[in-house]
C-alpha cells in the first residue's frame, strides 16, 4: 500500500488530469447510444423549431376538401403536401404534431421542474432536520397524496381558466410528494454518514452541507428517474385535454389531438397515432442520452477510468 504504486499507476494515463465532469461527458459522448439519442433529439428540435415556419402551413387552418387524407404511401389519396395526412377538418398532421410537441414538451418539462423543486426541497429539509420539521412536512405530503389529481385539476382548472401556467402548476403540485418521499429517505441515511460530520467540523452550515455535499450526491439518480416523468406528465396533460381541462383548442397539444382522433380511430388511425409517435421518439432520445450519461458516470465513479 505504498504511495508509489498509486502514483505510478495513474501517472501513466494522461486522462487523470481532466476533471471528473469532463471525463463523464467524454465517455458518454463516445457511446453509440448517446449519439443515436442526440441525433434523434437534434432532428426533433430542428423540426419543431423550423418546419412550421418554413412550410408556412397554419396548424389551425381548415381545408374541408382535403380532410382525412392518409399519410404517405398508405391508402389511396395521399399527397406530398401532407406527409402525415390530415385530420377530420383537413388540418395538416405534421405541423399540428410538431406544434403540439412544442406545447406538450414545454408542459411536461415545466411541470417536472416544478415537481422536482418543490419535492426535493421539502424532502431534503424533512430528511435532514428530522424531528418536528419532518413530521409537519410529511403530514403535508400525506394530505397532498390523499387528494386525487383529477379532483384537484377539476377544482383548480374549472375555477380559473386552463392556461398553460395553471396546468403546469396543477401537474407539478399534484405529483411532488413522490419526490419528497424519495429525497427524504436518501437524505436521512446520508446525513448520518461520517463525511457529513466532517463537514460540520469544518465549519459548514447546514445549508452548505445540503447544497454542496448532499445534493450533488443524490440529485443525479433522482434526475434520471424524473426523465421518465416528463413522459408521464405529457400523458397527464393529454388526460386533462381529454376532459376539456387542458390547453384549449384550437391550439394543438398531444392531448387534444388524441382526444379528437379518438372518434376517427377506425377510419383514420393516423390522427391519434402521430402524436404518440412523436412522444415516443422524444422520450426514447432523452432516455438514450440519460442512460449513456448515467452509465458513464457510474463507470468513472467506480474507477473504470
Amino acid at each position, binding site marked *: *500500500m505504498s*504511495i508509489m504504486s*498509486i*502514483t505510478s499507476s*495513474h*501517472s501513466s494515463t494522461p486522462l*487523470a*488530469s*481532466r*476533471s*471528473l465532469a469532463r471525463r463523464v461527458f467524454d465517455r458518454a459522448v463516445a457511446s453509440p447510444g448517446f449519439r443515436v439519442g442526440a441525433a434523434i433529439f437534434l432532428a426533433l428540435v430542428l423540426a419543431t423549431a423550423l418546419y412550421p415556419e418554413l412550410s408556412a402551413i397554419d396548424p389551425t387552418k381548415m381545408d374541408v376538401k382535403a380532410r382525412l387524407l392518409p399519410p404517405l404511401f398508405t391508402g389511396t389519396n395521399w399527397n406530398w403536401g401532407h406527409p402525415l395526412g390530415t385530420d377530420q377538418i383537413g388540418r395538416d398532421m405534421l405541423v399540428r404534431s410538431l406544434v403540439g410537441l412544442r406545447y406538450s414538451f414545454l408542459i411536461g418539462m415545466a411541470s417536472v421542474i416544478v415537481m422536482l423543486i418543490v419535492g426535493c426541497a421539502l424532502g431534503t429539509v424533512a430528511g435532514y432536520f428530522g424531528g418536528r420539521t419532518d413530521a409537519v412536512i410529511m403530514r403535508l405530503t400525506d394530505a397532498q397524496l390523499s387528494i386525487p389529481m383529477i379532483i384537484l385539476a377539476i377544482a383548480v382548472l374549472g375555477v380559473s381558466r386552463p392556461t398553460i401556467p395553471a396546468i403546469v402548476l396543477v401537474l407539478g403540485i399534484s405529483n411532488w410528494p413522490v419526490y419528497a418521499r424519495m429525497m427524504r429517505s436518501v437524505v436521512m441515511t446520508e446525513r448520518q*454518514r*461520517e*463525511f457529513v*460530520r*466532517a*463537514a*460540520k*467540523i*469544518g*465549519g*459548514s452550515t447546514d445549508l*452548505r452541507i445540503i447544497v*454542496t*455535499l448532499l445534493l*450533488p*450526491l443524490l440529485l443525479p439518480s433522482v434526475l434520471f428517474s424524473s426523465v421518465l416523468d416528463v413522459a408521464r406528465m405529457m400523458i397527464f396533460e393529454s388526460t386533462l385535454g381529454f376532459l376539456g381541462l387542458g390547453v384549449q383548442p384550437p391550439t394543438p397539444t398531444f392531448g387534444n389531438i388524441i382526444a379528437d382522433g379518438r372518434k376517427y380511430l377506425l377510419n383514420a388511425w393516423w390522427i391519434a397515432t402521430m402524436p404518440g409517435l412523436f412522444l415516443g421518439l422524444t422520450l426514447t432520445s432523452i432516455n438514450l442520452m440519460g442512460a449513456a450519461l448515467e452509465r458513464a458516470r457510474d463507470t468513472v*465513479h*467506480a*474507477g473504470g477510468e
Partner: protein
Amino acid sequence: MAALLELRNMTVALGRSETAKVILDDVSFSLAPKEIVGVVGASASGKTVLSRAAVNWLEPPLTRRSGTVLFEGRDIYAMKEADMRALRQRVSYVGANPMGALDPTLPVGAQIVEKMRAVMPDVSRRQAEDRVIALLDAVRIPSARNRFHDYPSQFSGGMMQRALIVDALVTNPAVLVADNVTQPLDVTVAAQVIRLIKELTDQFDTAVLFISSSLPMVREASSRTLVIDRGRIVEEQATEALVASPIHPYTRELVAQTPQIWRGAGAVPALPAEREVVLSLRDASQTYRVKKRNGIGGVNLVRAVRNVTFDVRRGDSFAIVGESGCGKSTLMRLLSRLELPSAGQILCEGKDIATLRGRDLLAFRARLQLVLQDPFGSLPPRTSIGRMLEEPLRTHGWRDKEKLRARVLKVMLEVGLAAELYNELPLGLSAGQRQRVNVARALVLEPTILIMDETLSALDQAEQFKLLDLFQALQKEYNLTYIFISHDLAMVRKVCNRVAVMYLGEVFELADNQRLFFDPGHPYTMALLSAMPTLEEKRYKPEDCLLEGEPPSPLSIPAGCSFKSRCPRAMEICNGEQPFLTVRDEQDFAACHLVARTMSPAERASP
C-alpha cells in the same frame, strides 16, 4: 497422542482454472485432543479460508485443489453428504461477527435449540433446552434461564459472542474452530472469552483451533502456534518458544512489530508541566433523553458523560481510553461542538465554546479539527480528493482558485498523498490512504488541536506505525495538540503523554503515561492493563484484577461508586459514597476510595 484433526497438503484456490489465485498453499498441520492451536497472520493471509477448509465449508469460487482433511482418521472430503452432516455435531465453528450470526427475529435460546436438534434429532426439546441453559450458565451469562428467551438485539457484543460459543458447544463437539472471535470485543471482554475457551477445553475435552490476527491474543489462548503468511504456514512452534525465539523472518517481524508496554523506556518525552491550557473541561456532562419502549410514553435519561473535568495543554498528546459504551464518543462530540453539553462548560483558550456564534464559531472550527474513525464512510464517495480538501477552505472564505489549489497540494504532500490524486475519487484508495486524506482534510485549516477519534483502529499494524510517525512529525512541525480517543492501550503507551481512563461516562483516572502504566491508582485501570494482550510478562496478573461481567447500563447507574459491581476490591464505603477524582500526585488523579484512604485528608481535586 493421535491427531484428532489433521490437514494434509491442503491447497485451495480462487476458481478452478490453472491460473487461479492460490489462497492456501500446501498447508499441513494436526490438532490433538484437548489442545488449543493458534493460527496467526495478517489480514488476507488466508486465515479464514484455512478455518473453513478444516470444517469442509468451502463455498464457490473457493475450490480445493489438493489435500485431505482427516478427522479421527477419516477423510471428510471423501465422505457422503449424510455422514458429513452427522459429523457436524463433532466439529463446530464460531465466526468473527457475533451480531450478524443469529436471526434477529427469533429468541437466542430457541435458535440454539433448533440447531442442536437439527444435528441430534433424537434429543427431546426439553432436554435440549436444559442443556442450552446449562451451557449459557457455564459461559457465565447472568440469569441464563431468563436470557434464554431474549432476542439477539438484547444481547451485548460480548454476551452474543458467548452465546455463539454455546451455539458451537451445544452438540459437544470434539473440535471448535474459533475464527477471530475476540476481534470485535473490548479487551476485558476478550480476556474473559479467552479464559472461557481455555476452561472449556478442560471441562468438555474440546480441541480448539484459535485463529486471530493478533499475536498477543494467540499467545494468551494457545499452547502451540502456526504462523501463516500469504497462504503458507511459515512457522510452527510452541507458543512461548515462538515468541521468545522466532525463526522465520516473517515471524520475527511480527514479534518485533508488536508494541511493548512495560519493557524498555517510554517513548514519550516528558513535557514541562507549565504550558498554556488550550482546552479545558469543567464538569462537562451530557444527558440524552430516550423515549421509553413501553409504548405509554415517558423518557429515560441516559447519562452518557458525567462531570468530566480535565485540562489539555498545548503540545499534549492526550488520550481518552475506555471500553465501548464508556462515553468516549459522546465526549468527542462535546469537544468538537457537534453537541452542546447539558451541564458544565468546555473552554477553548478561555472561551466557552457553547456560546460561540458566527465568526467566532468559524474561528473555533479552524482551531480544532477532528479526524474520524471510519476510513470508508468519512469521505464523500463522489467528490474528488482535491475538491474534498478545498471544501473546508471555501467554507472559511477562501475564494482564489490558485491559492486554494496550492494550499491543498501542500497539505497533500505533507501527509504523503501524491499530487496526482487531486482529481481522483477516493474510490481506489486503501484504508491507510483514506485516513491520510482524512488527516489532510483536518490539517488544511491549520488547526492547533486535532482530535483523533479511533483514527487508527481500522488499519493494520504496519500502516498504523506509518501514520503515527506522520502524526509525530506534524506535531513537531506545527506544535499541534492531539487528543486521541482510543481503546488501544498499546498505542496510547507509545504516543500519548497524558491519559484519561473513562468508565460509564466518568473519568476514573487521569495521569501521565509512565505513572498510569506502572502505578495505576484505580482498580479499573489495573483491570484494563491486565486484560491487555501482550508478548511480555504482565505487571498486573489477570487472576488478581480481571473483571467479571460487563458494565451496568447507563440508564440505571448504581449509587455510590459506579464500578463497585465489578470491582475486585469493593468495600463498604463504595456502596454509599461516590468517589471523586482525588489528587495522588501533582498531576495524577484517580476516582477511588482506595486513593482517598491512603491520601488523607481526602480532598476533592481541582485539576
